[in-house]
């Protein structure tokens, strides 16, 4: 069966719950099981379709006779689409399994049908975005994705913060969508057959060569639109608002794959339609990526809401992906296809990895939320004893996102580093000077990310329980959710261990888009060695790393446990300090305090502490109240001014309508006179 047919099956299966769920609305559990089983099946189908499409480099097109009569819906499955189809499907599969358990936990007065419908529509939208092959259909799919995710964010609509977040999200997304629309307009206008609606098809956009000015307009319009959706700083503010309040399985999808849809869009337009461009485009993309990466992780460090923290990390990782894309664009504009291929592969690989581990982390956070009904890390701690499975999976997620070998996050970041280090090949001294600094920033990002996830895992799962509610109520989540997380964890691990296999698989993308392949198997022993550029340039074998560590650990363990040795459990020593309570632990805020001090100027910090009881001695107050508020600077820099200006203008415009009919008559009078003067 051809990949495209499988993809179609996936679409149909994915859409089915929209109709079926209302039918079995009577039985809650039936609705849940049926719908999510179907979505899971659909996702698997999508994964298969995607894998095959990339494997065989298929290029199937189809036309659905819908939409405008002269502009029917064009679909196309090519390797790029296939790759993203695979990414989306993979995570959607895990999340669907997970959702069976998670959705059961919703309070009984919530409509399951409503959730299921928008959930399916959301994934269908994402599938269609990558499959669409004309501007109109693309935008329909794009906005379908946006709108349905909006309703999912709004799902618990009685909470004001959800409504606010959803509103912010939809506005930014829609403004972005209009920008994308305009960029398509530019390209369609230059493509031939505009008058006959044919210019709107991607085929004719692909066939056109664009003058530089228009190309620039198209690129930056679309980049703005996609960046708004991807949460690139400074357009990121909706992201940390919307992702935490959405149901966790949805946030997993939004953060894991919806953001990737915009990466897809950028790649599609840049490498597929425009093809040729000056180097400074890449420069801009690269620097935006760096800014997002560093600021994203720094803001993440300041959060104590687990899901908010993860959301800011999505900003960071999108930044890393953009770094790869920017480098790829730079190399392309200097006609270095192989290096461009390296950078592009790095970006795509990170796209895949981020989908996996961010999905995993959000599922883990969801599990914690499910068990403790709490998002605030300051109220958690010691969960590893209550939720061992979740702890393991979450730890794997942390290790992956912190880019530690041998897990997958490291591979893509390492590739990005390699791409950075190859920048001296650019025949621009200034570039080869500046770009390694970017590498340093990337290193900073990585290290901060590690810090952040030590904090996330340590505060949430380790130490003592900080919450006010009793920890006895906390239970490990059910097996659906565990399986969902387990699969994601396994994927993270295997993507880390067998990068060469994956890269061989997706090398065709680079070949099609930037016209270069990276010889990944130049190493001595084939798949074991990842040698992106040349064997003596750099090499990495995560397999060896894993085996090496494993063997040493085993050997030492066996040696040390040769004879039975007892372990005595005692209260913690803690330098002999007695009576340590759980409030004395380091918590999220105190953990990030040094970094807050060091990077202070980047945040909008309000910190106040007061002694709120009669103090005997100023040095030893009975009780202190400490308040800390760390805000995103971009609110005050960008968004509040925009809002104020808008309302100011609105007030001015309001003066037009000031109630007195004479004035209105004067308007029309003056209008006539003016028109007559100018045209009469």
């Amino acid at each position, binding site marked *: 069966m051809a990949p495209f047919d499988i993809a179609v099956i996936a679409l149909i299966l994915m859409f089915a719950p929209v109709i079926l769920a209302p039918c079995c609305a009577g039985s809650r559990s039936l609705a849940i099981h049926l719908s999510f089983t179907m979505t899971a099946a659909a996702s698997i189908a999508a994964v298969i379709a995607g894998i095959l499409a990339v494997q065989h480099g298929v290029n199937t097109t189809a036309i659905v006779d*819908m*939409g*405008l*009569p*002269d502009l029917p819906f064009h679909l196309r499955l090519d390797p790029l689409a296939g790759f993203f189809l695979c990414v989306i499907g993979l995570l959607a599969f895990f999340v669907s399994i997970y959702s069976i358990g998670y959705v059961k936990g919703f309070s009984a007065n919530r409509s399951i049908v409503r959730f299921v419908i928008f959930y399916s529509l959301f994934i269908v939208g994402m599938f269609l975005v990558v499959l669409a092959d004309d*501007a*109109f259909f693309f*935008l*329909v799919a*794009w*906005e*379908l994705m*946006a*709108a349905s995710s909006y309703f999912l964010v*709004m799902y618990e*609509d*009685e909470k004001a913060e959800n*409504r606010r977040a*959803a*509103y912010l999200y*939809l*506005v930014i997304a*829609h*403004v972005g*969508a*209009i*920008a994308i*629309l*305009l960029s*398509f*307009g*530019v390209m*369609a*206008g230059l493509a031939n057959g*505009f*008058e006959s*609606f044919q210019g*709107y098809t991607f085929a004719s956009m692909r066939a056109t060569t664009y003058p530089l000015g228009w190309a620039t*307009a198209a690129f930056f319009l679309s980049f703005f639109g996609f960046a708004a959706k991807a949460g690139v700083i400074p357009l990121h503010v909706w992201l940390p608002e919307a992702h935490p309040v959405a149901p966790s399985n949805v946030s997993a999808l939004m953060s894991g794959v919806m953001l990737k849809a915009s990466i897809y869009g950028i790649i599609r337009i840049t490498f597929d339609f425009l093809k040729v461009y000056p180097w400074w485009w890449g420069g801009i993309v690269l620097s935006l990526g760096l800014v997002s990466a560093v600021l994203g992780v720094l803001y993440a460090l300041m959060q104590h809401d687990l899901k908010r923290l993860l959301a800011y990390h999505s900003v960071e990782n999108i930044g890393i992906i953009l770094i790869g894309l920017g480098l790829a664009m730079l190399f392309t504009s200097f006609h270095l296809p192989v290096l461009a291929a390296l950078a592009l592969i790095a970006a795509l690989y990170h796209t895949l990895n981020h989908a996996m581990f961010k999905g995993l982390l959000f599922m883990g956070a969801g599990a914690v939320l499910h068990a403790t009904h709490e998002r605030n890390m300051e109220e958690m701690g010691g969960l590893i004893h209550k939720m061992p499975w979740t702890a393991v999976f979450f730890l794997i997620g942390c290790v992956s996102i912190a880019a530690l070998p041998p897990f997958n996050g490291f591979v893509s970041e390492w590739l990005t580093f390699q791409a950075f280090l190859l920048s001296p090949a650019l025949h621009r001294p200034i570039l080869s000077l500046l770009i390694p600094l970017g590498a340093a920033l990337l290193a900073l990002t990585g290290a901060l990310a590690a810090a952040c996830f030590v904090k996330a895992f340590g505060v949430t799962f380790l130490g003592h329980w900080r919450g006010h509610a009793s920890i006895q109520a906390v239970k490990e989540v059910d097996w659906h959710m565990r399986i969902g997380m387990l699969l994601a964890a396994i994927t993270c691990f295997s993507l880390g261990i067998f990068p060469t296999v994956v890269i061989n698989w997706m090398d065709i993308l680079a070949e099609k888009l930037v016209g270069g392949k990276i010889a990944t198997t130049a190493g001595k022993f084939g798949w074991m060695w990842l040698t992106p550029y040349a064997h003596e340039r750099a090499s990495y074998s995560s397999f060896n790393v894993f085996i090496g560590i494993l063997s040493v650990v085993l050997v030492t363990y066996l040696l040390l446990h040769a004879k039975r040795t007892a372990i005595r459990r005692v209260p913690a020593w803690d330098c002999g300090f007695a009576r340590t309570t759980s409030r004395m632990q380091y918590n999220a805020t105190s953990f990030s305090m040094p970094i807050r001090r060091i990077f202070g100027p980047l945040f909008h910090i309000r910190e106040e502490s007061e002694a709120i009881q009669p103090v005997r001695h100023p040095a030893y107050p009975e009780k202190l109240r400490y308040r800390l508020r760390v805000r995103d600077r971009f609110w005050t820099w960008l968004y509040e001014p925009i809002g104020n200006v*808008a*309302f100011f*203008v*609105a*007030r*001015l*415009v*309001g003066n*037009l*309508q000031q109630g007195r*009919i004479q004035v*209105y*008559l004067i*308007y*029309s009078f003056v*209008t*006539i006179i003016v*028109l*007559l003067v100018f*045209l*009469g």
Partner: protein
Amino acid sequence: MILLVLLGISLFFAVVLAFVGDWRYAPEINIAGSAATFSAGVVLALHVYLYGPMMVGHKFFFVDAFNVYLAVLTSFVSMTTAIFSRRYMRVERAHGRVGRWKMRFYHAMYQLFIFAMLLALLTNNFGVLWISMELATLSTVLLVSLYRTPTAIEAAWKYFILCGVGIAQALFGTVLLYFAAERVLGVGGEALLWTNLSQVSNQLEPTVLRLAFVFLMVGYGTKVGLVPLHNWLPDAHSEGPTPISAVLSGLLLNVALYALVRCKVLVDGSTGSHTAGRMLMGFGLLSILVAAFSLLRQKDIKRMFSYSSIENMGVATFAFGIGGPIATFGALLHMLVHSLTKSAIFFTAGHASQMHGTQEMDKIRGLISGNPVVGWAFIFGAIALVGMPPFGLFASEFLILTATIKDAPLLTPLLLLGLGVAFAAIFRKVQPMVAGAVPPWQTPLKAAHVPVLLHMALVLILGLYMPRFLSDWFHMAVGILK
């Protein structure tokens, strides 16, 4: 023949209802009348679709693709509105806001209004076009002030005076047009017929037509509600009974725009330049921006959506101004879907305000929990209205925007700004109304679901699967307006 029937029905029912309009089955009669009109309209449309344009009654009526689709739309929306007004006016009557005489008057005028609009659409004569436009205004003036509240009377008075003055300008323009036409086509009724004028438009005296268009623009522009001639519109559309707001926003604006476009074609044909088009673009853009920003500070639900009518009419006007097949196609589609969506929105808004006993948006809450159909229809209507797929307005705005960036790229930032602000403004208000828990002051209500759902379904279909014959129509119309 069928055409005369089409016109006759509504006139006839107007007379009938003038006598029995307060009878308890009057609403059903009203529905029946509009339904009959609608079916006649469909037949006429089929006729045109099969046999092409036609002229009836000594060239007095002329039907082509452009006006027939508007005629069908008008009769359709008037039918659904009649269905809606059955439930709505019953509640109003129960609240004692309208009495027997008012019901009579309401029903009679409703049909008369439809008659006026159909006449305006179908006539071939610019003079008659003017007359019926004036008639449409006059027939609705007193409906706006139906509730006799001070604000209602104020709104009606402004509507009356401003539109009267405007339309007077249009008459002067028509005189000038006649003056120019006479010198080509000779004295007599022939000289004001669109069919003749459109053929000789290139021989008409440019200076005169340019002057004429200024007056026509101001005249009909006032009725389209183009900034800065729009001031009557928010008042009139928000103070009248909701069915009237629906047809005013959904239909009358279209008819006025139709008149304007016909004139524009003549003028540009004669001057051979793009003067009139540019004028339309200017007015359209101004309307979009002003309306968008005015939306931000609305408190009254119907007032807000009247402003959005100004905005959407601005979009359509702008698109007609651009010209060219894509933009014109988009504009025609936009007129269609906007009137469907906007009337649907007004239906739901009307029910919402009845449920809460107020039009203040801050008091309207928890619609989805209160009345799911109304709530969902409302939010989806809003989504459609702000131009999000998969609804029809997205298709039209898509075409219009892409055409804009091709033909007038420098205006796109302004357009982007306008649409963005409008989106943010409308959603800012709509979202809290649908979401959340049911407030204590909300009262349950037997809502008229059929019209709302019908309209939303149509808008959805037009966005996802536009039928071939419709696009053929549009292409024909585009050919006419070239």
